[in-house]
């Protein structure tokens, strides 16, 4: 039984990796402007999507149809995970969380179809992008909650005296990253990625003239980047100072710091290359990884950091 549950955890981890890949493929669709290369849904040029001949996967169809294919596989794996959870997982709330992941992936598929049928309205496409990140976090949570270390109990750490408790700080950081991803998705789907075409200045100034909504959204995304980077540096420095020996906290914090540096570099490259496909798409994927890492850190911080260890142990006993 224990062996099977480890397999369940590994499968959840595998699904999280598949989801990251799916986010990359979805990013490719937008970067290559292929979102409407397949005008019908759920069919593909009238074919059942699974019988659409590979020889016809040309031009933008390759990206859009490929995205649908990978999404279907992720959807199928989510069904498998949910069924597996309901058969083997003892904790009801984890089973229901997997059901929520399944609901999210179904809604995500419907939103994907809706945005194609409605010719990519900004709000539907943005919602589609945001739900992708939410689903990604849900799968990460499932992988965390099914991990042996979580089930056996993470090591408890006494909270250090800080102006902002670590848990609160992590939650704030994750919320900031998520809001930043919403802004990023909005910017992408408004086609505002080059509304401010220079970097690090904005139209040669520190604050650009706000002559259009696209410039406002783009600049908000840059301001968001500064806020997110600051929050991540704050979180990392807090952990490095007070929880350095807690590898379950330190490692994701360090990873998050590295990822946000890479993220800023990718954002700058996307502008300098006039939204070249791969830097821009890598920016989308890396953004998801920043969120995922921050979310993982938040889960661990909430589970590990306690005010009074002895009381926690007593209550556990």
């Amino acid at each position, binding site marked *: 039984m224990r062996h099977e549950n480890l397999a369940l955890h590994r499968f959840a981890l595998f699904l999280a990796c598949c989801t990251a890949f799916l986010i990359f493929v979805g990013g490719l669709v937008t970067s290559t*402007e292929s979102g409407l290369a397949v005008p019908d849904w759920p069919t593909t040029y009238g074919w059942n999507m699974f019988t659409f001949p590979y020889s016809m996967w040309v031009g933008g169809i390759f990206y859009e149809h490929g995205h649908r294919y990978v999404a*279907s596989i992720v959807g199928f794996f989510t069904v498998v995970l949910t*069924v597996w959870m309901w058969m083997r997982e003892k904790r009801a709330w984890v089973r229901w969380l997997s059901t929520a992941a399944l609901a999210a992936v179904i809604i995500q598929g419907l939103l994907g179809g809706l945005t194609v049928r409605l010719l990519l309205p900004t709000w539907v496409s943005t919602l589609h992008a945001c739900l992708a990140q939410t689903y990604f976090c849900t799968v990460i949570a499932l992988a965390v909650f099914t991990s042996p270390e979580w089930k056996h109990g993470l090591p408890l750490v006494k909270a250090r005296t800080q102006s902002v408790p670590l848990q609160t700080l992590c939650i704030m950081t994750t919320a900031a990253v998520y809001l930043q991803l919403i802004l990023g998705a909005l910017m992408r789907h408004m086609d505002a990625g080059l509304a401010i075409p220079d970097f690090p200045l904005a139209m040669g100034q520190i604050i650009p003239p706000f002559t259009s909504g696209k410039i406002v959204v783009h600049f908000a995304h840059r301001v968001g980047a500064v806020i997110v980077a600051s929050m991540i540096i704050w979180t990392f420095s807090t952990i490095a100072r007070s929880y350095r020996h807690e590898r379950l906290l330190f490692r994701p914090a360090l990873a998050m710091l590295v990822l946000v540096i890479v993220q800023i570099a990718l954002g700058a490259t996307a502008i300098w290359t006039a939204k070249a496909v791969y830097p821009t798409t890598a920016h989308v994927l890396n953004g998801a990884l920043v969120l995922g890492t921050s979310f993982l850190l938040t889960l661990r911080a909430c589970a590990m950091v306690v005010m009074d260890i002895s009381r926690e142990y007593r209550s556990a006993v």
Partner: protein
Amino acid sequence: MHKRTILLGALLLAVALAGACGGGNDDDLPPVEGGGSGGGPTFDMSKANATVSGKIAFEGTPPPNDKIQMSADPFCQMHASSYPVAETVKVNNGGLENVIVYVSSGLPTGVSYAPATQPLEVDQMNCHYIPHVFTIRTNQPLKVKNSDMTLHNIHAYAEKNPQFNVGQAVQGMVNETKFGLPENAPPIPLRCDVHRWMGAFVGVFEHPFHTVSKPDGTFELKLPPGTYEVTAWHEKFGKKTMMVEVKDNDKKDVGFSFSVADKAAD
């Protein structure tokens, strides 16, 4: 355990339904909305006996067009050597091709124009739109044809008319549509999202006084006597206007001039 089995069954059913719902490929382009050529008596086209003609000149060295990368589709790649660059700026002997020239104001009010019933055709051939720029009347049938042995989607980025996006998977496939509302400032971009280099522009007019400059940059309009604002629009260089006054059977030579300094509005 029994409850779980039922729940699992329900979940699987939901997924299956989600996968099976919706669907079908649209065979025809969507119907048009609104339009018509207005009320009032039908304008007598025999009165359009004055000729306004000229040349769209391009001053200076034309900017290079973007290179086209067709390797994403083996069929298109076979024709890549014939179309190494985009058709954005085509200049021959100082004449600029693919400029829409039309009367933008000064036409008599309270009249209607006989509907244009002859269908126009835009063909997708060798992974290009032919013609690249054209004009059409409101409610005039437009046939969109796929002459290629590959898939295309025809996507009209209309602003006043309904947008549409329809796939043409089979060679020889023809779809027909109409635009019910005038849309010419700017014209409607047509795009293929499968092949991003494929683009065309269609100017939709309620009246018949419009044309597109030929390969040598020349154009000709037949107009009734009057004073008109005539506009010339190019996809890269934007638009220019001039006032033209013509009398019965006049032949007036006018010209527009574009240069690299001109830029289309976003």
